[in-house]
């Protein structure tokens, strides 16, 4: 069986796991199923679920249980089970939009499967770890975590994606960077589809496909996105989770029906749980998804029923499970976290000015983001100004998730014990990359609420 065919079967298994989880949380016969949202959200859910299982196997040194036969059998069973739900979600227009999007992005997909691995961060942080998990049965015999030679690979970083890639390697029987890149490029395609899906919702924009499709592609085909989509980085991976959390959270904010709100709240928390397996900053995303959802739910309904508390706490426990498990493994095997050193308050204050100026300088990064960042910034500032002048402050809550994430990244720059200016200049571009999709959704939502409803415009 070819490597690509095995990847396709395993990916179908991941989508199917997510679709089944989605059906449990939202309800299989929900009339508002939209494949443009279900597909990316299911991918995030499926990956999160299996990353949790893999983390447990790695911690208990049982990774050798993973064999190609078992992987293919589980994937096939899940795919056949999920097929029933998938067929119900199929609609002609969204399928055409997906086909057109994949057609435009096809060169990037092809490039991921035909280009060698060279970006040093991707190799040092993720692909070396993936290889180490492929060659070991767990933490106890993993050379990368026992030899000081590999200290530069930051062993405290989340390991969900390297573990997932190692399962691909185990299934095909050898290391194949291009198969891993092909797995990762799916996050990029799904991020584009997720943006289209969430922006098409009436609560976010009232634009037709004629404007929406070129608008989303305008942002997503900028050089930085293309480069990071096909070279083994995980910034687009986490960008998809942040975008899904933001999109679902905004939908929850706009939904009046209480039963539907509860389902959306549970889904938002569980989707957010995937972030903590991807990157260190993902822990903030997971925590924020839970807290922001709880805040909106309490704001909308004040007093919750006992069943609602049970549901929200259960989803919260699932979200915290991944963080707690990785922390337990880190403590058991003595993996130090590099941000543990103390930085003096005076040093932190002196860093504020260069941080702010670097943030503003990023707007000029047209070689990386094209005109996307400038256009987004102008529209954002306009929406904020109009909201302030009209005293409709509550609309600005929509910026909550990306803004708090930006503040948390700023906090890391303030306390980092590493070379501050080098870390700032080399990492901020990628943090912007993570936040742009969420900012697009938030801006769309605020803009929609500032403009009169469509039936008013028609008159």
């Amino acid at each position: 069986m070819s490597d690509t065919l095995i990847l396709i079967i395993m990916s179908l298994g991941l989508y199917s796991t997510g679709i089944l989880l989605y059906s449990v949380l939202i309800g299989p016969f929900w009339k508002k199923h939209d494949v443009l949202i279900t597909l990316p959200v299911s991918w995030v859910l499926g990956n999160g679920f299996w990353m949790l299982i893999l983390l447990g196997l790695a911690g208990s040194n049982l990774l050798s249980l993973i064999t190609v036969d078992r992987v293919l059998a589980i994937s096939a069973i899940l795919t056949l089970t999920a097929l029933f739900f998938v067929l119900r979600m199929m609609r002609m227009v969204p399928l055409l939009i997906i086909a057109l999007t994949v057609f435009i992005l096809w060169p990037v997909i092809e490039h991921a499967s035909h280009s060698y691995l060279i970006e040093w961060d991707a190799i040092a942080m993720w692909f070396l770890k993936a290889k180490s998990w492929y060659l070991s049965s767990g933490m106890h015999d993993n050379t990368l975590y026992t030899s000081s030679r590999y200290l530069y690979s930051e062993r405290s970083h989340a390991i969900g994606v390297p573990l997932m890639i190692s399962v691909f390697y185990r299934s095909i029987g050898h290391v194949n960077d291009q198969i891993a890149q092909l797995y990762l490029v799916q996050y990029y395609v799904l991020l584009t589809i997720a943006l289209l899906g969430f922006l098409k919702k009436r609560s976010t924009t009232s634009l037709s496909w004629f404007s929406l499709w070129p608008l989303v592609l305008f942002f997503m085909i900028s050089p930085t996105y293309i480069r990071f989509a096909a070279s083994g980085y995980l910034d687009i991976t986490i960008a998809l989770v942040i975008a899904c959390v933001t999109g679902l959270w905004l939908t929850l904010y706009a939904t009046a029906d209480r039963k539907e709100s509860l389902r959306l709240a549970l889904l938002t928390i569980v989707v957010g749980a995937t972030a903590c397996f991807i990157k260190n900053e993902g822990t903030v995303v997971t925590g924020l998804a839970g807290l922001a959802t709880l805040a909106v739910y309490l704001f909308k309904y004040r007093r919750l029923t006992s069943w609602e508390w049970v549901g929200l706490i259960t989803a919260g426990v699932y979200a915290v499970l991944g963080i707690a498990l990785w922390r337990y493994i880190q403590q058991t095997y003595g993996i130090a976290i590099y941000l543990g050193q103390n930085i003096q308050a005076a040093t932190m204050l002196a860093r504020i000015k260069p941080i702010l100026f670097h943030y503003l300088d990023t707007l000029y990064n047209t070689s990386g983001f094209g005109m996307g960042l400038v256009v987004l910034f102008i529209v954002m500032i306009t929406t904020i100004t109009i909201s302030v002048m009209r005293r409709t402050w509550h609309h600005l809550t929509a910026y909550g998730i990306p803004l708090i994430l930006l503040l948390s990244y700023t906090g890391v720059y303030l306390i980092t014990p590493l070379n501050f200016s080098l870390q700032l200049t080399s990492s901020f571009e990628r943090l912007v990359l993570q936040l742009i999709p969420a900012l697009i959704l938030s801006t769309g939502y605020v803009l929609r609420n500032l403009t009169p409803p469509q039936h008013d415009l028609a008159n």
Partner: protein
Amino acid sequence: MPHRYEWYILPLVIILFIIHFHYYDFYTTNFRDIKNFIDPHAPEGLYRQIQRQNPYWELYEQSVNYQGSNNAIYLVFTDQRTPDYTTTYYTGKKTNISELVIMTNYFFYPRVVPTISFKQFKNITLQPHDLIIADINLNAYIPASQSGLIRLPASVKKQHVMVNKKFEDPYYLFVKGEL
């Protein structure tokens, strides 16, 4: 169909899309060129063909050749380059880091290839077929007749360079000859 007020922004959206698509097209042309060097039906297989384009192909090839071998492998690392992000990021941990170190560690994993300085290299005794990876041409400092090191030639000229990719730092491979 677009709402009648949507028509006002539609030209702007389409022009912005076309501007970005123009640059995107530049990248996709480059991607097509890269792909054209790969023959899916070649007996060598897709993976090795793609690796052959890698600037560190010779390193990858030796990692395959030395898999399971008892011969010693050393990385002579002098790091005479101007310090940059890749060299200075981990200086706090006193770990030498460069693209060559990263690629060596990656290709040879789980074998730990010791990194040694030029001074240490002069003091070690090599056995036949031992492999030396270096960031300087060792034969320029110690004559081959004296060190017994045979430089492995670069086996293939790289067909393409990826967009926005700086050239790799030079590296040299040597094998200790028969006594």
